[in-house]
């Protein structure tokens, strides 16, 4: 994260913390020195001065008995602080040890206390307080004992869950394995783990108690008159609502500001102890500006000589906004074609821009990025010129995508049959019945037995391989001319991978679609692809048909990948690797992006390297001179 962003976040955090802490500190000071700060005795009545409006003498006016509202507000603050401290301390002292104990002991103790907690929690809090007050009698301390008992359940559950979570930690299990008693280790680790949630729960409780105390006093069973509390003041205000509505304002504001300050501090603590915030507007706006300015010199809509290619990508550039807020390119100058019925492999290491290329074709990069240059033509239509609505029509019908992890790319809340049938209904206008019947046909077609029953399954009830077959069936439901498959076998068991690859070949023969097959695995690509486009750090380094690429790589990176394939090397010596690591987009050099890792690097490689188009598309200055055969 860049320094400016960090500072901005710290500033906005301080903008909350400083006023909130100031309010609470001021409240504590005023509460302690209430006698000194209050201009009048809060209990001194003067019926002649009843129900006055704010004036220089009485800054906040007077109540029905002529008592000074400001003085009562100040003494009410003292009560509010005392009450919330008292109830919170009771809650912690009752809840934490009991929660630790039952978490520790488990068994019958745990069962019984938790049922008791459930019982207490199922009684509305205010009603529980009313009951306890009915037993103990009214008054501040009794009401606070009641609230303390109620809120102790939250601390109890928290302490118990921390103990239970720690029990499952590796170091505790390890201690058990070596025969040590885990209890001592547990105790030592519980304290640091319980502190953060305890602090947060405490702030939540203080806020809740403040509100509850005001509520109980308001209905007359908390603080008893004539003592001033914010709740009793509101009780008075309610009675004189039509005569003097202003009476409700000072105590109400006092409650809101105090509770707000406590809650805000709690929020900040939770945020700083929990995870940070991601995303940002500034980068997206910057990017949006850039995209619009680029769009002015949009690709020419002129039709080129009709080509048989289903997909034609030219000079594609994709930018995304990084976490630090900068807009960076992740794909540059990328171009390829796929013919009807052909499979093109897009091969490269993770982070080289393969997946985002697939998403760029679909127009689905999202608000954090976009295509900034180049042309994407599907069946002769420039996708970059389409409106959002037109693009939506193209998706699913003309082009569709299969994702890496089938267990996350299917919606867990709907049956798999419904997810296929929905596409048919929406995109093809089929009736529910016809769509369902067709969905079952498709499920059977992708090789799943008992399709009619399987259609009623939810994704979590299927194996990974079966779920991926469903995802493929959905992608093909509208007969698209292009299928983008993004690492469709990577998340699957090795034993089912081959079945899925065979399915792709099989379906391509029947449906005749073009396939863009994205993978990091050259062996998989060799199995299924006709041609392979090798990508490195956001650009294409080499493209050729599978046989030529494997037998005669022209780019040192391709050669390195081939050498690193397990199949092509002996078990002994160990698997060769390419030295160094892939540079991140921010670190891309101006010249050849592979230069740093290349053993054939020359000084000329420091200059930008264009794609050479001789016998082979390759981005290497020395493509024609190097002897690169795959080392055995």
């Amino acid at each position: 994260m860049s320094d400016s962003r960090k500072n901005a976040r710290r500033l906005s955090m301080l903008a909350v913390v400083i006023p909130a802490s100031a309010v609470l500190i001021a409240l504590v000071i005023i509460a302690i020195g209430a006698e000194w700060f209050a201009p009048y005795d809060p209990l001194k009545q003067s019926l002649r001065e009843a129900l006055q409006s704010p004036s220089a003498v009485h800054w906040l006016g007077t109540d029905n008995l002529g008592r000074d509202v400001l003085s009562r507000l100040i003494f009410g603050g003292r009560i509010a602080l005392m009450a919330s401290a008292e109830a919170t301390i009771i809650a912690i002292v009752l809840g934490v040890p009991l929660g630790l104990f039952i978490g520790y002991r488990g068994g019958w103790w745990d069962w019984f206390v938790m049922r008791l907690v459930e019982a207490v929690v199922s009684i509305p809090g205010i009603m529980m307080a009313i009951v306890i007050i009915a037993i103990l009698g009214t008054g501040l301390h009794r009401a606070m004992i009641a609230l303390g008992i109620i809120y102790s359940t939250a601390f109890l559950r928290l302490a118990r869950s921390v103990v239970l979570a720690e029990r499952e930690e590796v170091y505790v299990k390890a201690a058990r394995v070596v025969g040590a008693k885990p209890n001592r280790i547990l105790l030592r680790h519980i304290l640091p783990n319980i502190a953060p949630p305890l602090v947060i729960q405490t702030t939540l409780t203080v806020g809740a108690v403040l509100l509850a105390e005001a509520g109980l006093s308001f209905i007359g069973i908390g603080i008893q008159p004539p003592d001033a509390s914010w709740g009793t003041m509101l009780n008075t205000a309610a009675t004189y609502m039509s005569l003097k509505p202003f009476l409700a304002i000072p105590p109400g504001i006092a409650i809101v500001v105090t509770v707000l300050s406590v809650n805000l501090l709690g929020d900040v603590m939770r945020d700083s102890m929990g995870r940070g915030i991601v995303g940002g507007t500034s980068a997206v706006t910057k990017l949006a500006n850039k995209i619009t300015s680029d769009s002015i010199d949009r690709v020419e809509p002129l039709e080129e000589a009709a080509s048989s290619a289903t997909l034609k990508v030219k000079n594609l550039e994709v930018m995304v906004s990084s976490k630090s807020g900068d807009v960076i390119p992740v794909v540059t100058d990328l171009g390829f074609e796929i013919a009807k019925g052909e499979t093109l492999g897009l091969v490269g290491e993770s982070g080289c821009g393969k997946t985002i290329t697939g998403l760029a074709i679909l127009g689905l990069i999202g608000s954090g990025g976009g295509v900034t240059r180049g042309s994407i033509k599907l069946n002769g239509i420039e996708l970059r010129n389409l409106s959002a609505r037109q693009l939506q029509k193209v998706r699913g019908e003309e082009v569709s995508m299969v994702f890496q992890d089938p267990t996350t790319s299917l919606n867990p809340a709907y049956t798999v049959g419904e997810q296929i049938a929905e596409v048919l209904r929406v995109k093809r206008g089929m009736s529910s019945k016809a769509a369902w019947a067709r969905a079952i046909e498709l499920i059977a077609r992708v090789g799943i037995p008992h399709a009619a029953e399987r259609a009623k399954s939810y994704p979590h009830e299927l194996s990974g391989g079966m779920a991926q077959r469903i995802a493929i069936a959905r992608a093909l439901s509208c007969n698209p001319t292009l299928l983008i498959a993004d690492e469709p076998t990577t998340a699957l068991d090795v034993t089912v991978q081959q079945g899925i690859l065979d399915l792709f070949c099989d379906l391509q023969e029947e449906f005749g679609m073009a396939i863009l097959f994205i993978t990091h695995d050259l062996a998989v690509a060799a199995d299924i692809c006709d041609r392979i486009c090798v990508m490195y750090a956001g650009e294409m380094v080499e493209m050729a048909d599978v046989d030529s690429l494997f037998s005669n790589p022209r780019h040192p990176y391709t050669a390195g990948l081939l050498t690193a394939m397990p199949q092509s090397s002996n078990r002994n010596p160990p698997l060769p690797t390419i030295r160094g690591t892939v540079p991140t987009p921010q670190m891309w050099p101006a010249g050849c992006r592979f230069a740093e890792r290349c053993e054939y690097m020359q000084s000329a490689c420091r200059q930008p390297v264009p794609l050479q188009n001789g016998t082979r598309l390759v981005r290497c200055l020395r493509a024609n001179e190097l002897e690169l055969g795959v080392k055995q």
Partner: protein
Amino acid sequence: MLRLIGQRLIALIPLLFIVSILTFSFTSIMPGDPVDLVLGDDASEEQIQLVRERMGLNVPIVQRYFIWLGKAVQGDFGNSFFYSVKVMDNIKERLPVTISLAAVSAAIALFVGLGAGIAAALRPRSWIDRWATLGATLGQAVPNFWLGLILAAAFAVELRWFPATGFTSLTESPWEWLRSITLPALALGLSSSAAIARQSRSAMVGVLQQDYIRAARAQGLSASRVIFKHALKNALIPVVTVFSFLVTVLLGGALIVEQVFAINGLGSLAINAVWRQDIPVIQGIVLVSVVIVVGIQLLTDIAYGYLNPKARPV
């Protein structure tokens, strides 16, 4: 689904049993003899014996509990200490008032909370998001009864659009019912919507980042269909959990908000019972409201099972 309902119902039995023991034990924890409470200090020995007999206090406590429980499950909580009315009749008269207030408040809380939460989640860091977050933060700090007072001052006392006090039942006059319930339900519902808004925002933001959302878009489904069909059903799962907690909060809050608008619901019945230590009335109110809470939690469990297939028993 039936299996889920069956499992939950069975799990409720120990809970209700413990609540009944807790509730029954009020009489025995209470300082002082309930007989003194009823008769005052200068009662004769015969009178005391008579009352003890009538209240069943001469039987051992365990036996007394089961007699009480046997009647309670049939809806008989005995008579009030002070009025010769059946507690259940008293509750039956007040309950519909409190229930209708809590129900309308729940509807408002859901509508406002979900609306604000989803609108904020769709455009994180936009002005809608900022205002919704601000509103939710403020909403959690505003006491519902104070909001009630302010609403009453503005719309009942000043503008006279709504009655400031009282309650008309739905069967009597639907229009007057709506007028009498609007302000209290707004006070209670708006202050409860904050929790729903916060939860639904964070759930929706999380769900929108899921793979299956992108996959649904890749199938060419419209943004609104993806949001309101594919994302919403998943985002509602944690909201349902919050809502089931909120039910108890609303029921408790109703007791207080009723006082602002001088509505004769369970609230004033309970408060008067506290002052007189009228234990049978309190026992009745507690048990009835726990049954309601538990019933609604059962409904939310069913909703949870509907939304989340993984939670259904196999």
